[in-house]
Protein backbone atom coordinates (compact mmCIF):
# COMPACT_ATOMS: atom_id res chain seq x y z
CA UNK A 1 0.00 0.00 0.00
CA UNK A 2 1.20 3.48 -0.79
CA UNK A 3 2.03 5.54 2.26
CA UNK A 4 1.79 8.71 0.27
CA UNK A 5 -0.23 9.47 -2.82
CA UNK A 6 -0.22 12.87 -4.43
CA UNK A 7 -2.61 13.65 -7.25
CA UNK A 8 -2.49 16.70 -9.53
CA UNK A 9 -1.03 18.93 -6.84
CA UNK A 10 -0.72 22.66 -7.45
CA UNK A 11 0.68 25.37 -5.22
CA UNK A 12 0.89 29.11 -5.90
CA UNK A 13 2.76 31.82 -4.03
CA UNK A 14 0.94 34.87 -5.29
CA UNK A 15 1.83 34.99 -8.97
CA UNK A 16 4.43 32.24 -8.72
CA UNK A 17 3.24 28.77 -9.67
CA UNK A 18 5.60 26.80 -7.46
CA UNK A 19 4.17 23.29 -7.87
CA UNK A 20 2.53 22.56 -11.21
CA UNK A 21 0.53 19.39 -11.25
CA UNK A 22 2.59 16.78 -9.42
CA UNK A 23 1.45 13.16 -9.34
CA UNK A 24 3.45 10.91 -7.06
CA UNK A 25 2.99 7.63 -5.25
CA UNK A 26 5.43 6.50 -2.59
CA UNK A 27 5.20 2.90 -1.42
CA UNK A 28 5.48 2.07 2.26
CA UNK A 29 9.03 1.77 3.54
CA UNK A 30 10.67 3.49 0.59
CA UNK A 31 13.36 6.15 0.79
CA UNK A 32 12.45 8.76 -1.79
CA UNK A 33 14.63 11.73 -2.60
CA UNK A 34 13.15 14.87 -4.12
CA UNK A 35 15.99 16.52 -5.95
CA UNK A 36 16.39 19.53 -8.21
CA UNK A 37 18.04 22.94 -8.36
CA UNK A 38 16.91 25.70 -6.00
CA UNK A 39 13.52 27.06 -6.95
CA UNK A 40 12.32 23.81 -8.54
CA UNK A 41 9.55 23.42 -5.96
CA UNK A 42 10.99 20.48 -4.02
CA UNK A 43 10.86 22.15 -0.62
CA UNK A 44 7.42 23.56 -1.34
CA UNK A 45 6.24 20.09 -2.24
CA UNK A 46 7.60 18.70 1.02
CA UNK A 47 6.07 21.51 3.07
CA UNK A 48 2.74 20.96 1.38
CA UNK A 49 2.91 17.28 2.27
CA UNK A 50 3.66 18.30 5.86
CA UNK A 51 0.74 20.72 5.90
CA UNK A 52 2.92 23.75 6.53
CA UNK A 53 1.62 25.09 3.20
CA UNK A 54 -1.89 24.65 1.86
CA UNK A 55 -2.33 22.91 -1.47
CA UNK A 56 -4.18 25.11 -3.96
CA UNK A 57 -5.40 22.17 -6.01
CA UNK A 58 -5.09 18.40 -6.03
CA UNK A 59 -5.08 15.88 -3.20
CA UNK A 60 -2.56 14.49 -0.76
CA UNK A 61 -3.30 11.10 0.77
CA UNK A 62 -1.29 9.67 3.64
CA UNK A 63 -2.03 6.04 4.41
CA UNK A 64 -5.09 6.13 2.20
CA UNK A 65 -6.62 9.15 3.90
CA UNK A 66 -6.96 12.54 2.20
CA UNK A 67 -5.13 14.98 4.48
CA UNK A 68 -5.52 18.28 2.60
CA UNK A 69 -7.73 19.73 5.33
CA UNK A 70 -5.72 18.35 8.26
CA UNK A 71 -3.37 20.43 10.42
CA UNK A 72 0.27 19.26 10.39
CA UNK A 73 -0.06 17.66 13.82
CA UNK A 74 -2.87 15.41 12.60
CA UNK A 75 -1.03 14.06 9.57
CA UNK A 76 1.07 11.50 11.42
CA UNK A 77 4.35 12.86 10.08
CA UNK A 78 7.72 13.81 11.55
CA UNK A 79 10.05 16.32 9.99
CA UNK A 80 13.71 17.33 10.12
CA UNK A 81 14.47 20.93 9.21
CA UNK A 82 17.48 22.40 7.46
CA UNK A 83 18.45 24.70 10.34
CA UNK A 84 17.89 22.01 12.97
CA UNK A 85 15.01 23.95 14.57
CA UNK A 86 16.02 22.91 18.06
CA UNK A 87 14.62 24.80 21.03
CA UNK A 88 17.57 26.69 22.55
CA UNK A 89 15.92 26.84 25.98
CA UNK A 90 15.60 23.04 26.26
CA UNK A 91 18.33 20.48 26.74
CA UNK A 92 18.82 17.63 24.30
CA UNK A 93 16.61 15.26 26.25
CA UNK A 94 13.71 17.71 26.30
CA UNK A 95 14.20 18.56 22.64
CA UNK A 96 13.92 14.92 21.66
CA UNK A 97 11.02 14.36 24.05
CA UNK A 98 9.12 17.41 22.78
CA UNK A 99 7.01 15.57 20.21
CA UNK A 100 6.24 12.72 22.60
CA UNK A 101 5.09 15.15 25.28
CA UNK A 102 2.99 17.15 22.84
CA UNK A 103 1.19 13.93 21.99
CA UNK A 104 0.63 12.99 25.61
CA UNK A 105 2.84 9.92 25.54
CA UNK A 106 2.76 8.31 29.01
CA UNK A 107 5.66 9.56 31.10
CA UNK A 108 7.20 6.14 31.75
CA UNK A 109 7.48 5.51 27.98
CA UNK A 110 9.19 8.81 27.20
CA UNK A 111 12.47 8.22 29.00
CA UNK A 112 13.32 4.80 27.48
CA UNK A 113 12.28 5.98 24.01
CA UNK A 114 14.45 9.09 24.18
CA UNK A 115 17.42 7.11 25.51
CA UNK A 116 17.10 4.41 22.85
CA UNK A 117 16.91 7.01 20.07
CA UNK A 118 19.89 8.90 21.49
CA UNK A 119 21.91 5.68 21.64
CA UNK A 120 21.02 4.90 18.05
CA UNK A 121 22.33 8.31 16.98
CA UNK A 122 25.39 8.22 19.25
CA UNK A 123 24.28 11.24 21.27
CA UNK A 124 23.43 9.34 24.46
CA UNK A 125 26.10 11.23 26.38
CA UNK A 126 24.76 14.67 25.34
CA UNK A 127 21.26 14.47 26.77
CA UNK A 128 21.91 17.10 29.46
CA UNK A 129 23.55 19.58 27.12
CA UNK A 130 21.90 22.59 25.56
CA UNK A 131 21.91 23.19 21.79
CA UNK A 132 24.40 26.06 22.07
CA UNK A 133 26.93 23.60 23.53
CA UNK A 134 26.78 21.25 20.53
CA UNK A 135 28.61 21.14 17.21
CA UNK A 136 26.80 21.27 13.87
CA UNK A 137 26.89 17.51 13.42
CA UNK A 138 25.60 16.90 16.93
CA UNK A 139 22.82 19.43 16.43
CA UNK A 140 21.72 17.62 13.30
CA UNK A 141 21.74 14.28 15.11
CA UNK A 142 19.49 15.74 17.79
CA UNK A 143 17.19 17.14 15.12
CA UNK A 144 16.99 13.72 13.48
CA UNK A 145 16.47 12.12 16.87
CA UNK A 146 13.55 14.40 17.58
CA UNK A 147 11.86 13.18 14.41
CA UNK A 148 12.61 9.46 14.61
CA UNK A 149 11.77 9.10 18.30
CA UNK A 150 8.15 9.33 17.24
CA UNK A 151 6.40 6.50 15.54
CA UNK A 152 5.14 8.44 12.54
CA UNK A 153 3.90 7.10 9.26
CA UNK A 154 5.97 9.47 7.17
CA UNK A 155 9.36 11.05 7.85
CA UNK A 156 10.25 14.23 5.99
CA UNK A 157 13.76 15.66 5.66
CA UNK A 158 14.19 19.18 4.30
CA UNK A 159 17.84 19.51 3.19
CA UNK A 160 19.05 18.34 6.58
CA UNK A 161 22.73 18.16 5.67
CA UNK A 162 23.22 21.38 3.73
CA UNK A 163 24.60 23.25 6.76
CA UNK A 164 27.30 20.70 7.46
CA UNK A 165 30.83 20.59 6.11
CA UNK A 166 31.68 18.03 3.43
CA UNK A 167 33.18 15.37 5.67
CA UNK A 168 30.35 15.48 8.17
CA UNK A 169 27.87 15.40 5.33
CA UNK A 170 29.33 12.14 4.02
CA UNK A 171 29.16 10.66 7.49
CA UNK A 172 25.56 11.74 8.15
CA UNK A 173 24.48 10.53 4.72
CA UNK A 174 25.47 7.03 5.69
CA UNK A 175 23.90 7.49 9.10
CA UNK A 176 20.52 8.46 7.72
CA UNK A 177 20.58 5.60 5.25
CA UNK A 178 21.41 3.16 8.03
CA UNK A 179 18.60 4.61 10.10
CA UNK A 180 16.21 3.99 7.25
CA UNK A 181 17.31 0.39 6.97
CA UNK A 182 16.90 -0.10 10.73
CA UNK A 183 13.52 1.56 11.03
CA UNK A 184 12.06 0.52 7.68
CA UNK A 185 9.95 3.69 7.63
CA UNK A 186 8.77 5.69 4.65
CA UNK A 187 11.07 8.65 4.26
CA UNK A 188 11.02 11.59 1.89
CA UNK A 189 14.22 13.55 1.63
CA UNK A 190 14.73 16.86 -0.12
CA UNK A 191 18.12 17.92 -1.43
CA UNK A 192 19.70 19.88 -4.24
CA UNK A 193 22.76 17.66 -4.09
CA UNK A 194 22.72 14.98 -6.77
CA UNK A 195 25.32 12.91 -4.94
CA UNK A 196 23.10 12.76 -1.86
CA UNK A 197 20.23 11.78 -4.10
CA UNK A 198 22.18 9.05 -5.89
CA UNK A 199 23.71 7.54 -2.77
CA UNK A 200 20.69 7.57 -0.48
CA UNK A 201 17.59 7.06 -2.56
CA UNK A 202 15.59 3.97 -3.29
CA UNK A 203 13.91 6.24 -5.74
CA UNK A 204 14.77 9.68 -7.06
CA UNK A 205 12.14 12.18 -8.05
CA UNK A 206 13.83 14.85 -10.12
CA UNK A 207 11.89 18.10 -10.17
CA UNK A 208 12.15 20.99 -12.56
CA UNK A 209 10.06 24.16 -12.54
CA UNK A 210 7.47 22.63 -10.23
CA UNK A 211 6.98 19.47 -12.27
CA UNK A 212 8.39 15.98 -12.09
CA UNK A 213 10.96 15.65 -14.84
CA UNK A 214 11.67 11.97 -14.20
CA UNK A 215 11.25 9.52 -11.33
CA UNK A 216 12.81 6.14 -10.80
CA UNK A 217 15.65 4.18 -9.24
CA UNK A 218 18.90 6.19 -9.10
CA UNK A 219 20.74 4.04 -11.62
CA UNK A 220 17.71 4.04 -13.90
CA UNK A 221 17.79 7.81 -14.04
CA UNK A 222 21.53 7.82 -14.39
CA UNK A 223 21.69 5.32 -17.22
CA UNK A 224 18.37 5.90 -18.92
CA UNK A 225 17.54 9.57 -18.58
CA UNK A 226 14.51 10.63 -20.58
CA UNK A 227 15.66 14.19 -21.13
CA UNK A 228 18.79 16.25 -21.53
CA UNK A 229 17.95 17.93 -18.22
CA UNK A 230 18.05 14.68 -16.25
CA UNK A 231 21.17 13.51 -18.06
CA UNK A 232 22.94 16.75 -17.20
CA UNK A 233 21.73 16.95 -13.60
CA UNK A 234 22.96 13.56 -12.44
CA UNK A 235 26.61 12.65 -12.53
CA UNK A 236 29.78 14.51 -11.64
CA UNK A 237 31.48 15.86 -13.65
CA UNK A 238 28.37 16.40 -15.69
CA UNK A 239 27.66 14.72 -18.99
CA UNK A 240 29.26 16.27 -22.08
CA UNK A 241 26.83 17.50 -24.72
CA UNK A 242 28.18 17.77 -28.27
CA UNK A 243 26.29 18.99 -31.32
CA UNK A 244 26.26 16.38 -34.11
CA UNK A 245 24.37 15.16 -37.14
CA UNK A 246 23.09 11.69 -38.02
CA UNK A 247 24.53 10.49 -41.34
CA UNK A 248 23.89 7.32 -43.32
CA UNK A 249 26.60 4.68 -43.22
CA UNK A 250 25.71 1.61 -45.19
CA UNK A 251 22.81 -0.12 -43.42
CA UNK A 252 23.13 1.99 -40.32
CA UNK A 253 23.98 5.45 -39.02
CA UNK A 254 27.07 7.35 -38.04
CA UNK A 255 27.49 10.60 -36.15
CA UNK A 256 29.20 13.54 -37.75
CA UNK A 257 30.51 16.26 -35.45
CA UNK A 258 30.74 19.92 -36.37
CA UNK A 259 34.45 19.68 -37.16
CA UNK A 260 33.78 16.82 -39.59
CA UNK A 261 34.88 13.98 -37.31
CA UNK A 262 32.79 10.88 -37.77
CA UNK A 263 31.95 8.54 -34.93
CA UNK A 264 30.37 5.16 -35.74
CA UNK A 265 27.20 4.32 -33.83
CA UNK A 266 26.75 0.72 -32.68
CA UNK A 267 24.60 -1.15 -35.18
CA UNK A 268 21.14 -2.04 -33.94
CA UNK A 269 21.02 0.30 -30.95
CA UNK A 270 19.81 3.34 -32.86
CA UNK A 271 17.87 1.60 -35.64
CA UNK A 272 14.69 3.42 -34.73
CA UNK A 273 16.44 6.64 -35.80
CA UNK A 274 17.01 5.47 -39.38
CA UNK A 275 14.32 7.82 -40.67
CA UNK A 276 16.06 10.76 -39.00
CA UNK A 277 18.97 10.62 -41.37
CA UNK A 278 20.66 14.04 -41.68
CA UNK A 279 18.85 15.36 -38.62
CA UNK A 280 20.74 17.35 -35.97
CA UNK A 281 21.15 15.64 -32.62
CA UNK A 282 23.03 16.27 -29.41
CA UNK A 283 25.46 13.56 -28.39
CA UNK A 284 25.60 12.94 -24.65
CA UNK A 285 28.79 11.30 -23.32
CA UNK A 286 29.60 10.82 -19.65
CA UNK A 287 33.20 11.68 -18.73
CA UNK A 288 33.73 8.19 -17.30
CA UNK A 289 32.73 6.54 -20.57
CA UNK A 290 35.87 7.78 -22.24
CA UNK A 291 39.30 6.29 -21.69
CA UNK A 292 42.71 6.46 -23.28
CA UNK A 293 43.02 3.87 -26.01
CA UNK A 294 45.26 1.01 -25.00
CA UNK A 295 47.24 -0.89 -27.65
CA UNK A 296 45.29 -3.84 -28.92
CA UNK A 297 42.09 -2.58 -27.33
CA UNK A 298 39.36 -3.51 -29.77
CA UNK A 299 35.73 -4.11 -29.01
CA UNK A 300 32.46 -3.39 -30.79
CA UNK A 301 31.04 -0.01 -29.94
CA UNK A 302 34.29 1.76 -29.22
CA UNK A 303 34.85 4.92 -31.20
CA UNK A 304 38.30 6.52 -31.54
CA UNK A 305 38.89 10.23 -31.12
CA UNK A 306 42.06 12.32 -31.28
CA UNK A 307 42.24 14.73 -28.37
CA UNK A 308 44.63 17.49 -27.27
CA UNK A 309 44.56 18.00 -23.52
CA UNK A 310 43.79 21.62 -22.56
CA UNK A 311 43.43 21.31 -18.80
CA UNK A 312 44.07 18.65 -16.18
CA UNK A 313 42.30 18.39 -12.83
CA UNK A 314 43.73 15.48 -10.82
CA UNK A 315 41.43 14.16 -8.06
CA UNK A 316 43.62 11.26 -6.97
CA UNK A 317 43.22 8.00 -8.79
CA UNK A 318 41.24 9.77 -11.51
CA UNK A 319 42.02 12.91 -13.45
CA UNK A 320 39.57 15.15 -15.28
CA UNK A 321 41.01 16.05 -18.67
CA UNK A 322 39.48 18.90 -20.64
CA UNK A 323 39.79 18.76 -24.42
CA UNK A 324 38.09 19.94 -27.59
CA UNK A 325 35.42 17.43 -28.61
CA UNK A 326 34.12 18.28 -32.10
CA UNK A 327 34.05 22.02 -31.40
CA UNK A 328 32.82 21.79 -27.82
CA UNK A 329 34.89 21.78 -24.64
CA UNK A 330 34.44 18.40 -22.97
CA UNK A 331 35.76 16.55 -19.94
CA UNK A 332 37.00 12.97 -19.87
CA UNK A 333 37.55 11.15 -16.59
CA UNK A 334 40.79 9.21 -17.08
CA UNK A 335 43.09 7.13 -14.94
CA UNK A 336 45.63 9.54 -13.54
CA UNK A 337 48.58 7.63 -15.02
CA UNK A 338 47.07 7.82 -18.52
CA UNK A 339 47.73 11.55 -18.91
CA UNK A 340 50.64 13.66 -17.86
CA UNK A 341 50.66 17.16 -19.33
CA UNK A 342 48.60 19.73 -21.14
CA UNK A 343 48.94 19.94 -24.92
CA UNK A 344 49.56 16.21 -24.82
CA UNK A 345 47.97 14.51 -27.83
CA UNK A 346 46.18 11.29 -26.97
CA UNK A 347 43.66 8.96 -28.55
CA UNK A 348 40.44 8.43 -26.61
CA UNK A 349 38.12 5.45 -26.87
CA UNK A 350 34.47 6.40 -26.43
CA UNK A 351 32.05 3.70 -25.33
CA UNK A 352 29.31 4.36 -27.88
CA UNK A 353 27.11 1.68 -26.30
CA UNK A 354 26.53 4.04 -23.38
CA UNK A 355 26.15 7.39 -25.09
CA UNK A 356 22.76 8.98 -25.51
CA UNK A 357 21.33 10.99 -28.37
CA UNK A 358 19.09 13.96 -27.72
CA UNK A 359 16.60 15.73 -29.93
CA UNK A 360 17.78 19.38 -29.87
CA UNK A 361 14.29 20.81 -30.30
CA UNK A 362 12.47 18.87 -27.56
CA UNK A 363 15.54 18.03 -25.41
CA UNK A 364 14.11 14.50 -25.14
CA UNK A 365 16.43 11.53 -25.23
CA UNK A 366 15.97 9.60 -28.49
Amino acid at each position, binding site marked *: MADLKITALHKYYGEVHAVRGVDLEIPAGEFTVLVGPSGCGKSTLLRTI*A*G*LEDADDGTIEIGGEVVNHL*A*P*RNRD*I*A*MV*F*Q*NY*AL*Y*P*YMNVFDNIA*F*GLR*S*RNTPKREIEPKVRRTAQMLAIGHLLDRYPRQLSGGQLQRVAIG*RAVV*RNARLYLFDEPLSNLDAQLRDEMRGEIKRLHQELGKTMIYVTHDQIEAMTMADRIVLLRDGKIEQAGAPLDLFERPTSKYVAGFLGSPTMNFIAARLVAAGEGLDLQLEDGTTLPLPRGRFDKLLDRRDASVILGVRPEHMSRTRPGQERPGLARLEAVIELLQPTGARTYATFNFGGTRAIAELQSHEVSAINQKIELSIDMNRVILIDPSSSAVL
Partner: protein
Amino acid sequence: MMTLGRRRALHLGLRLAAAIALTLAFMFPIYWLFMISFKTPEEIYSFPPKWYPGHLNFGNYAVLFRDGDAVTVWNSLVVAFISTAIAMFLGSICAYSLARFATGGRQLANWIVSQRMIPPIAVVFPIFLLYVWFGLVDTYLGVILLYTAFNLPYVIWMMRGYILDIPRALEESALVDGCNRWQVIWRVVVPMCRAGLSATAIFTFVFAWNDFIFALVLTRTEVATYTVQITHYFGGQSNFWAKISAMSALGTVPIFIAMAFMQRYFVRGISLGAVKG
Protein backbone atom coordinates in the same frame (compact mmCIF):
# COMPACT_ATOMS: atom_id res chain seq x y z
CA MET B 1 57.92 58.56 27.27
CA MET B 2 55.12 56.54 28.72
CA THR B 3 55.11 52.80 28.35
CA LEU B 4 52.09 51.13 26.86
CA GLY B 5 51.20 49.54 30.18
CA ARG B 6 51.18 52.87 32.00
CA ARG B 7 49.11 54.50 29.30
CA ARG B 8 46.59 51.76 29.52
CA ALA B 9 46.46 52.08 33.30
CA LEU B 10 45.95 55.83 33.02
CA HIS B 11 43.22 55.31 30.47
CA LEU B 12 41.48 52.84 32.71
CA GLY B 13 41.81 55.16 35.69
CA LEU B 14 40.24 58.05 33.79
CA ARG B 15 37.35 55.90 32.67
CA LEU B 16 36.80 54.66 36.18
CA ALA B 17 36.84 58.19 37.53
CA ALA B 18 34.33 59.31 34.91
CA ALA B 19 32.08 56.35 35.73
CA ILE B 20 32.19 57.12 39.43
CA ALA B 21 31.49 60.80 38.84
CA LEU B 22 28.49 59.98 36.63
CA THR B 23 27.15 57.46 39.10
CA LEU B 24 27.43 59.95 41.94
CA ALA B 25 25.71 62.65 39.88
CA PHE B 26 22.82 60.31 39.08
CA MET B 27 22.57 58.68 42.47
CA PHE B 28 22.72 61.84 44.55
CA PRO B 29 19.10 62.99 44.05
CA ILE B 30 17.90 59.51 44.94
CA TYR B 31 20.13 59.45 47.99
CA TRP B 32 18.90 62.86 49.00
CA LEU B 33 15.27 61.81 48.52
CA PHE B 34 15.66 58.84 50.83
CA MET B 35 17.64 60.83 53.38
CA ILE B 36 15.02 63.55 53.64
CA SER B 37 12.34 60.93 54.13
CA PHE B 38 14.16 59.75 57.27
CA LYS B 39 14.79 63.20 58.71
CA THR B 40 12.88 65.14 61.29
CA PRO B 41 11.43 68.52 60.19
CA GLU B 42 14.23 70.34 61.99
CA GLU B 43 16.87 68.34 60.18
CA ILE B 44 15.16 68.96 56.83
CA TYR B 45 15.31 72.73 57.23
CA SER B 46 18.66 72.94 59.02
CA PHE B 47 21.38 75.02 57.45
CA PRO B 48 24.05 74.07 56.49
CA PRO B 49 22.20 70.91 55.28
CA LYS B 50 22.80 67.65 57.10
CA TRP B 51 24.07 64.94 54.76
CA TYR B 52 22.46 62.19 56.75
CA PRO B 53 19.84 62.06 59.51
CA GLY B 54 20.89 61.76 63.13
CA HIS B 55 19.02 58.46 63.37
CA LEU B 56 16.68 56.57 61.07
CA ASN B 57 13.30 58.09 61.72
CA PHE B 58 10.31 56.29 60.21
CA GLY B 59 7.86 58.89 61.42
CA ASN B 60 7.28 60.38 57.98
CA TYR B 61 6.25 56.97 56.66
CA ALA B 62 4.12 56.25 59.70
CA VAL B 63 2.15 59.43 59.02
CA LEU B 64 1.44 58.34 55.44
CA PHE B 65 0.13 54.99 56.58
CA ARG B 66 -1.83 56.44 59.51
CA ASP B 67 -3.59 59.03 57.37
CA GLY B 68 -4.32 56.49 54.65
CA ASP B 69 -2.23 58.36 52.06
CA ALA B 70 -0.13 55.26 51.45
CA VAL B 71 -3.13 53.58 49.85
CA THR B 72 -2.39 55.65 46.75
CA VAL B 73 0.78 53.61 46.26
CA TRP B 74 -1.40 50.53 46.42
CA ASN B 75 -3.71 52.13 43.83
CA SER B 76 -0.75 52.76 41.57
CA LEU B 77 0.37 49.16 41.99
CA VAL B 78 -3.08 47.78 41.17
CA VAL B 79 -3.65 49.84 38.05
CA ALA B 80 -0.09 49.49 36.77
CA PHE B 81 0.06 45.76 37.40
CA ILE B 82 -3.34 44.86 35.98
CA SER B 83 -3.07 47.16 32.97
CA THR B 84 0.40 45.78 32.21
CA ALA B 85 -0.83 42.20 32.45
CA ILE B 86 -3.78 42.87 30.13
CA ALA B 87 -1.74 44.91 27.65
CA MET B 88 1.01 42.27 27.56
CA PHE B 89 -1.46 39.44 26.98
CA LEU B 90 -3.58 41.12 24.33
CA GLY B 91 -0.65 42.91 22.72
CA SER B 92 1.48 39.80 22.39
CA ILE B 93 -1.31 37.81 20.77
CA CYS B 94 -1.98 40.69 18.43
CA ALA B 95 1.74 40.99 17.64
CA TYR B 96 1.91 37.28 16.86
CA SER B 97 -0.94 37.62 14.44
CA LEU B 98 0.70 40.63 12.74
CA ALA B 99 4.10 38.93 12.58
CA ARG B 100 3.03 35.52 11.35
CA PHE B 101 -0.13 36.08 9.36
CA ALA B 102 0.42 39.69 8.23
CA THR B 103 -3.05 40.42 9.61
CA GLY B 104 -4.45 43.66 8.30
CA GLY B 105 -1.78 44.05 5.65
CA ARG B 106 1.77 45.26 5.94
CA GLN B 107 1.00 48.77 7.15
CA LEU B 108 -1.23 47.92 10.11
CA ALA B 109 1.71 47.63 12.49
CA ASN B 110 2.94 51.11 11.55
CA TRP B 111 -0.52 52.53 11.96
CA ILE B 112 -0.84 50.95 15.40
CA VAL B 113 2.45 52.34 16.66
CA SER B 114 1.49 55.78 15.39
CA GLN B 115 -1.30 55.74 18.00
CA ARG B 116 1.37 55.87 20.65
CA MET B 117 2.52 59.23 19.35
CA ILE B 118 -0.66 61.04 20.34
CA PRO B 119 0.22 63.60 23.04
CA PRO B 120 -1.76 62.62 26.15
CA ILE B 121 -2.85 66.18 26.77
CA ALA B 122 -4.66 66.23 23.42
CA VAL B 123 -6.94 63.37 24.38
CA VAL B 124 -7.23 63.51 28.15
CA PHE B 125 -10.12 65.97 28.29
CA PRO B 126 -12.24 64.29 25.61
CA ILE B 127 -11.63 61.05 27.47
CA PHE B 128 -12.65 62.71 30.72
CA LEU B 129 -15.97 63.77 29.17
CA LEU B 130 -16.50 60.24 27.85
CA TYR B 131 -15.68 58.77 31.26
CA VAL B 132 -18.20 61.09 32.94
CA TRP B 133 -20.76 59.80 30.48
CA PHE B 134 -19.91 56.16 31.19
CA GLY B 135 -19.43 56.68 34.93
CA LEU B 136 -15.80 55.55 34.80
CA VAL B 137 -14.21 58.55 36.47
CA ASP B 138 -12.32 57.66 39.66
CA THR B 139 -12.70 53.91 39.20
CA TYR B 140 -10.05 51.19 38.87
CA LEU B 141 -11.77 50.03 35.68
CA GLY B 142 -11.47 53.46 34.11
CA VAL B 143 -7.77 53.94 34.83
CA ILE B 144 -6.86 50.36 33.94
CA LEU B 145 -8.75 50.61 30.64
CA LEU B 146 -6.96 53.81 29.76
CA TYR B 147 -3.46 52.57 30.61
CA THR B 148 -4.12 49.33 28.75
CA ALA B 149 -5.29 51.19 25.67
CA PHE B 150 -2.36 53.57 25.81
CA ASN B 151 0.20 50.80 26.22
CA LEU B 152 -1.20 48.35 23.69
CA PRO B 153 0.39 49.96 20.61
CA TYR B 154 3.78 49.92 22.28
CA VAL B 155 3.45 46.29 23.35
CA ILE B 156 2.27 45.25 19.90
CA TRP B 157 5.11 47.04 18.16
CA MET B 158 7.83 45.72 20.44
CA MET B 159 6.55 42.15 20.59
CA ARG B 160 6.09 42.03 16.84
CA GLY B 161 9.79 42.75 16.45
CA TYR B 162 10.79 40.05 18.93
CA ILE B 163 8.47 37.49 17.33
CA LEU B 164 9.78 38.25 13.84
CA ASP B 165 13.23 37.33 15.17
CA ILE B 166 12.15 33.78 16.06
CA PRO B 167 13.02 31.36 13.25
CA ARG B 168 9.82 30.10 11.70
CA ALA B 169 11.16 26.57 11.58
CA LEU B 170 10.98 26.39 15.39
CA GLU B 171 7.25 26.94 15.24
CA GLU B 172 6.76 24.71 12.23
CA SER B 173 8.65 21.95 13.96
CA ALA B 174 6.31 22.25 16.93
CA LEU B 175 3.27 22.23 14.64
CA VAL B 176 4.45 18.99 13.04
CA ASP B 177 5.32 17.56 16.46
CA GLY B 178 1.75 17.81 17.67
CA CYS B 179 1.08 21.37 18.84
CA ASN B 180 -1.77 23.61 17.80
CA ARG B 181 -1.24 27.37 17.42
CA TRP B 182 -1.96 28.17 21.06
CA GLN B 183 0.44 25.51 22.21
CA VAL B 184 3.05 26.83 19.80
CA ILE B 185 2.68 30.28 21.32
CA TRP B 186 2.89 28.95 24.85
CA ARG B 187 5.64 26.37 24.37
CA VAL B 188 7.82 28.05 21.72
CA VAL B 189 7.08 31.75 21.24
CA VAL B 190 6.84 32.71 24.92
CA PRO B 191 10.07 30.98 25.99
CA MET B 192 11.85 32.29 22.90
CA CYS B 193 11.02 35.92 23.68
CA ARG B 194 11.17 35.82 27.44
CA ALA B 195 13.74 38.62 27.43
CA GLY B 196 11.62 40.73 25.08
CA LEU B 197 8.50 40.09 27.15
CA SER B 198 10.30 41.22 30.31
CA ALA B 199 11.73 44.36 28.80
CA THR B 200 8.40 45.32 27.25
CA ALA B 201 6.50 44.57 30.46
CA ILE B 202 8.85 46.78 32.47
CA PHE B 203 8.47 49.70 30.08
CA THR B 204 4.72 49.24 30.12
CA PHE B 205 4.61 49.05 33.90
CA VAL B 206 6.82 52.09 34.28
CA PHE B 207 4.62 54.11 31.95
CA ALA B 208 1.55 53.35 34.05
CA TRP B 209 3.48 53.80 37.28
CA ASN B 210 4.88 57.19 36.29
CA ASP B 211 1.76 58.55 34.63
CA PHE B 212 0.54 61.78 36.11
CA ILE B 213 -1.64 63.64 33.64
CA PHE B 214 -4.24 60.89 33.07
CA ALA B 215 -4.44 60.03 36.74
CA LEU B 216 -4.77 63.71 37.68
CA VAL B 217 -7.76 64.25 35.41
CA LEU B 218 -9.47 60.87 35.73
CA THR B 219 -9.18 60.18 39.48
CA ARG B 220 -10.48 62.01 42.53
CA THR B 221 -10.20 60.24 45.86
CA GLU B 222 -11.09 56.57 45.40
CA VAL B 223 -8.31 55.47 43.09
CA ALA B 224 -5.92 58.44 43.10
CA THR B 225 -2.41 57.21 42.37
CA TYR B 226 0.66 58.18 44.34
CA THR B 227 1.84 60.66 41.70
CA VAL B 228 -1.39 62.59 42.15
CA GLN B 229 -1.23 62.28 45.92
CA ILE B 230 2.21 63.90 46.06
CA THR B 231 0.84 67.08 44.48
CA HIS B 232 -1.48 67.47 47.49
CA TYR B 233 1.59 68.10 49.65
CA PHE B 234 2.53 71.22 47.76
CA GLY B 235 0.52 73.85 49.57
CA GLY B 236 -0.04 77.56 49.02
CA GLN B 237 1.57 78.38 52.38
CA SER B 238 4.19 75.67 52.70
CA ASN B 239 5.43 72.45 51.16
CA PHE B 240 5.37 69.24 53.21
CA TRP B 241 8.84 68.04 52.28
CA ALA B 242 8.77 65.16 54.73
CA LYS B 243 5.61 63.72 53.19
CA ILE B 244 6.74 64.50 49.65
CA SER B 245 9.99 62.67 50.13
CA ALA B 246 8.50 59.70 51.98
CA MET B 247 5.81 59.24 49.34
CA SER B 248 8.34 59.62 46.54
CA ALA B 249 10.56 57.03 48.21
CA LEU B 250 7.63 54.63 48.47
CA GLY B 251 6.99 55.26 44.79
CA THR B 252 10.50 54.31 43.71
CA VAL B 253 10.70 51.08 45.71
CA PRO B 254 8.47 48.90 43.44
CA ILE B 255 10.51 49.94 40.40
CA PHE B 256 13.73 49.05 42.21
CA ILE B 257 12.35 45.64 43.10
CA ALA B 258 11.07 44.99 39.59
CA MET B 259 14.40 45.96 38.05
CA ALA B 260 16.38 43.87 40.52
CA PHE B 261 14.43 40.77 39.58
CA MET B 262 14.30 41.33 35.85
CA GLN B 263 17.56 43.14 35.14
CA ARG B 264 19.08 40.17 33.34
CA TYR B 265 16.19 39.83 30.90
CA PHE B 266 15.73 43.56 30.69
CA VAL B 267 19.22 44.29 29.41
CA ARG B 268 19.07 41.40 26.94
CA GLY B 269 15.61 42.52 25.87
CA ILE B 270 16.50 46.10 25.04
CA SER B 271 19.72 45.10 23.29
CA LEU B 272 17.76 42.59 21.17
CA GLY B 273 15.42 45.37 20.21
CA ALA B 274 18.35 47.60 19.37
CA VAL B 275 19.65 45.15 16.77
CA LYS B 276 16.21 44.93 15.22
CA GLY B 277 15.91 48.71 14.87
